[in-house]
């Protein structure tokens, strides 16, 4: 039963990702006083792309074909580490957070390779920028995980979630607040959202992710876009699981699971509104200010790790 629910929640993260993207887009449109597209639009976009031809530039090698598949496969395997409606994930007790972080990193690495293999100038520019951003984001991401896992005495995401579930809501320590802020900043950078990258346009010279995907088309593009939507969904689910897991089903009953799903959806909606507010109110940072932005996250994560020594809890 636990395994079955694990499969269901992994499928949920994969299949609901385009819906989350649609909802964030719709909320953004509303904040900007536009009507906005339907929240189901990303699904029809994906369907349309899957039916089209896969065009490959004549200069590209097999890497260009393989990159989208690898990106998608890697992000789907990262999904299996995230608890959603119960405190254990599909493979939650087999791999620790370091594996999770580097699964995300492998995905980015192959996307960069594919972009550079495509042969266009924009692909190379986007890839080099993405390399900068992901290098700077990796440190704070790992350190925030380290801080939380020191407090919870567990290296696996499921273990951390189970420990947090046993705590009182008010007992959240300094470490958690600092680590939450760090992971929030890193999630925005990792998912390519607003202060770091603008997901709404591919007409800017400063684009990062959109620059990398310019050469892809058809099913390849669909896989990359879907993987990117899953990445946002996974990072938000991770924030919820690590810092606000209350409501997750402790034992498996239908009522408990329903309650857990409801609580999860409410929390996800709050985060989606938050992302939409940030995206409509903050201007994109200049490329050379991004290291400063992520430097703040690094400082916060170092502070979080050192606070694990100071805090008595």
């Amino acid at each position: 039963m636990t395994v079955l629910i694990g499969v269901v929640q992994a499928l949920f993260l994969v299949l609901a990702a385009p819906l989350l993207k649609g909802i964030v887009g719709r909320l953004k449109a509303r904040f900007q006083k536009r009507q906005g597209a339907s929240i189901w639009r990303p699904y029809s976009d994906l369907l349309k792309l899957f039916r089209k031809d896969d065009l490959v530039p004549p200069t590209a090698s097999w890497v260009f074909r393989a990159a989208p598949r690898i990106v998608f496969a890697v992000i789907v395997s990262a999904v299996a580490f995230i608890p959603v409606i119960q405190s254990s994930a599909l493979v939650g007790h087999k791999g620790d957070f370091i594996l999770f972080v580097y699964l995300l990193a492998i995905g980015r690495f192959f996307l960069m390779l594919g972009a550079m293999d495509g042969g266009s100038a924009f692909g190379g520019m986007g890839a080099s920028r993405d390399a900068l951003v992901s290098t700077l984001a990796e440190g704070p991401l790992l350190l925030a995980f380290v801080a939380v896992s020191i407090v919870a005495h567990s290296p696996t995401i499921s273990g951390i979630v189970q420990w947090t579930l046993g705590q009182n809501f008010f007992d959240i320590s300094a470490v958690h607040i600092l680590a939450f802020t760090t992971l929030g900043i890193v999630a925005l950078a990792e998912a390519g959202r607003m202060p770091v990258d603008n997901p709404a346009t591919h007409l800017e010279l400063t684009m990062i992710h959109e620059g990398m995907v310019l050469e892809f088309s058809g099913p390849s593009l669909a896989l990359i876009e879907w993987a990117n939507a899953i990445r946002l969904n996974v990072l938000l689910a991770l924030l919820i699981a690590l810092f606000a897991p209350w409501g997750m089903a402790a034992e498996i009953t239908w009522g408990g699971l329903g309650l857990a799903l409801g609580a999860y959806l409410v929390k996800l909606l709050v985060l989606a509104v938050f992302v939409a507010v940030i995206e409509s109110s903050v201007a994109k940072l200049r490329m050379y200010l991004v290291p400063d932005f992520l430097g703040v996250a690094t400082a916060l994560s170092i502070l979080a790790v050192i606070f694990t020594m100071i805090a008595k809890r």
Partner: protein
Amino acid sequence: MEFADVAAVKVVSTSAVFLMMTIVLLAVSRRISTSILVFGLQSAIITAQVAGTAYLERSAEAWVVAGLIFVVKVLGIPYAFFWLVAKLKSRRDVQAATTPAQSVFIVVVMIFVSYAAVRSYAFGIRVPEDALAASVALILTGAFLMVSRGKALMQMLGLLVLENGIFLAALTTTFGMPLIIEMGILFDVLIGLLLMGIFAFRIRDTFEHLDVSRLRRLRG
């Protein structure tokens, strides 16, 4: 224990952490308006802490102090600052001498220094270490803002942050000063803001900018 009691205890014990977050935010903010908002947020956290203490100690005076702080520091001073910024029509950045990342590292070091400084002392007099460390960190950050930001308004803001730190230290070590002294201090802060406001206008009129690092020469 009642839910309200638990909430009050936790507000008092966790507010130190949120105060440290505001310290980091002050270090990264590039614009005067952001700094003012963060200062208002910081004062609101201190208000919550005073209210929590008032609830736990069942003290009417502390409720009055909480109300006064809310009116003066959360509403009054930020409003006055925004008015000043609008009137002065100067550039919006704080003219920092350090980059945001450098500032963050400096204030993080300051937080550690304040923990190291209060560690033995807090244990001796049985007060929460976090809150005392946060107050020392606020004092240090206020001083840091005053020396590292070029814009004349930030000197005043640094002084106010420093004052917040002193107030918090008094609150955590003695559960607040007598009401009459609190009112005197708040009045002092308001007069200080008034004087600094007039001074900022004079600086602007004489030098046509507000950068204190460029106040080298005398002008008639």
